[in-house]
């Protein structure tokens, strides 16, 4: 039973393509604001990055660990409100507020998770739905946090120090950073035992326990990652809107879930793909049809969801993976690799 350990290099041929693709896309993304001078496309891109990060926060808890949350927005709200209240009422720097919000959201997540993780499947989902309603009711009646009106920023302090800008480009870079941070979280999970453990818990908790997995502990870990990210997204959203109100922070649970499942759950780029498709559709359709005051944009949005779930049950990422598999299979057939590397 001697165990040998062969060190494998990160810079392998197999990794070359993803790395190159990643660097190219990052470069393009970083240069985008230099060339895009119109505000609207920039706004759409900011929303894509933000929702990709929020989707990832849902994905960690629900896609990887299988605990389907219909109340992810609670943590977005806690994050956004914490930093906003601290800033507007106490003059605390929003960056510090973001950290405070993330911590508070993690504590909330722990408090909610402790009892609710005992529930199975849909009971958990409905419980989270109830939690978000409870939070919404409390926030709208709570005058200390501005009640139904919300909190409006004084619009005095601008610049990186105050996390508030008159231009869109700085928000763009911060949102992009937030998205990269969300990928980093997923990478940490995927490239460690945590990812394997979460997927096992998702498939079968009895198996997980039998294999020595401390199920409550790993669910709590997923919750901690998930809530932190959601809260950071909440602070970003409040700073971007320059206000925090119940409707824009506590009512995002369903869109977050929809776009992630559309993109593909339990995969790193699923949320980005989902956001990349749904957000532009939503934003452009809304802008295009807005004059008539009708709901054609939402009809289109709903139709896309229903059609995708029928045609691509695994999400849009299924299309990409299918293409990649075909590509690599034809390559493998030529080189006849005897044994491939497991993930």
């Amino acid at each position, binding site marked *: 039973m001697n165990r040998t350990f062969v060190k494998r290099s990160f810079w392998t041929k197999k990794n070359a393509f993803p790395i190159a693709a990643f660097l190219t896309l990052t470069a393009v993304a970083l240069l985008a604001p230099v060339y895009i001078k119109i505000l609207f496309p920039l706004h759409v891109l900011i929303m894509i990055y933000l929702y990709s990060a929020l989707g990832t926060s849902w994905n960690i808890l629900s896609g990887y660990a299988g605990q389907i949350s219909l109340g992810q927005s609670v943590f977005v709200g806690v994050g956004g409100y914490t930093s906003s209240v601290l800033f507007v009422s106490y003059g605390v720097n929003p960056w510090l507020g973001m950290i405070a919000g993330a911590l508070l959201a993690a504590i909330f997540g722990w408090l909610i998770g402790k009892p609710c993780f005992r529930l199975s499947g849909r009971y958990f989902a409905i*419980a989270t739905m109830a939690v978000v309603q409870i939070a919404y009711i409390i926030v709208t009646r709570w005058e200390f946090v501005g009640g139904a009106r919300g909190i409006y920023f004084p619009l005095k302090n601008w610049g990186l120090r105050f996390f508030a800008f008159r231009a869109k480009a700085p928000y763009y870079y911060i949102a992009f950073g937030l998205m990269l941070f969300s990928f980093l979280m997923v990478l940490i999970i995927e490239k460690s035992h945590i990812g394997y453990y979460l997927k096992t818990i998702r498939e079968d908790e009895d198996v997980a326990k039998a294999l020595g997995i401390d199920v409550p502990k790993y669910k709590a870990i997923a919750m901690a990652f998930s809530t932190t990210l959601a809260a950071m997204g909440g602070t970003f959203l409040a700073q971007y809107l320059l206000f925090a109100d119940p409707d824009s922070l506590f009512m995002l649970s369903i869109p977050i879930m*929809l776009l992630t499942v559309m993109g593909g759950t339990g995969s790193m780029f699923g949320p980005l793909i989902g956001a990349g498709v749904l957000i532009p559709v939503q934003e452009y359709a809304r802008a295009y049809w807005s004059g008539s005051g009708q709901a054609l944009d939402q009809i289109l949005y709903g139709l896309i969801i229903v059609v995708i779930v029928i045609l691509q049950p695994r999400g849009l990422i299924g299309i990409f993976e299918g293409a990649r598999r075909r590509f690599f299979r034809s390559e493998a057939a030529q080189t006849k690799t005897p044994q491939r590397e497991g993930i």
Partner: protein
Amino acid sequence: MEHIEQVLVSGLFAGMVYGLISIGLSLIWGIMDMVNFAHSDFMMLAMYFTYLLFSKLGLDPLFSLPLVAAGMFCLGVLTYFLVIRHVIGGELVQQTLCTFGLVVLLQSVAQYLWTGNYQMINEPLVSGNIRIFAASLSKGQVVAGVASLFLAGAIWWVIQKTRIGWALMATAQNRYSAPLVGIKVDRMFALAWGIGLASVGAAGVFLANYYYIYPQVGATFQLLALVAVALGGFGSIPGAIVAGIAVGLIEALSGYLIEPAYKYLVVFSLYIVVVLVRPHGFFGTHS
């Protein structure tokens, strides 16, 4: 300030309607092991149908009931075959995504066709108030409550006493062995959707008698119905009715004792507490 009798009686009658709404949800949940998050948005559709029949054809809700219920039954079967059938074998996330997609679709279609304005049926046949004990209630609400109970009883009878009901229950117990005794599972699922939507459609007709009609009207009812189903135990019709009434009473009482703004807060908190203590509801038998 309202007095307690008023609160209890109106809570009771509201609860009966919640019960009828919950039955369809519970049936689909129990038979297909699937949560239809768009359930009460279908009810919203039925409310609009009722409204249109009234305003365009002058048909009173009392008479449009069979028409709307039949229409909703067909819509249920159609939805099953067009959409639901394709996700039935999928995971919980896909089913959830699918029915939430329907939520978006139904609400936006209603918004597009009938705008977001509040509509109301003016002076239906059943209007005015009635006194029950010391409480004064709109007749529409009383009719809705009583008719809901009656319909719930009828559905329960069909499930308990007829061959079709027996086949439905067999499918609920084991969809894989049901075909062995000659049950066509696909048809049973379609039937569950038909009955589910017909019953929630009937609830919509009753509600249209005295309630505002707007595209998002389903949202609150959806959560209340989910709570009722979870409390009553999925698949159980008596459970859905009793839990629906309980939800109505709790809602009314907490509105009275605490503050109307917090009534749902109490209902939802109670859901979480109850479900933690009894994960399968009070009438549920599944483990």
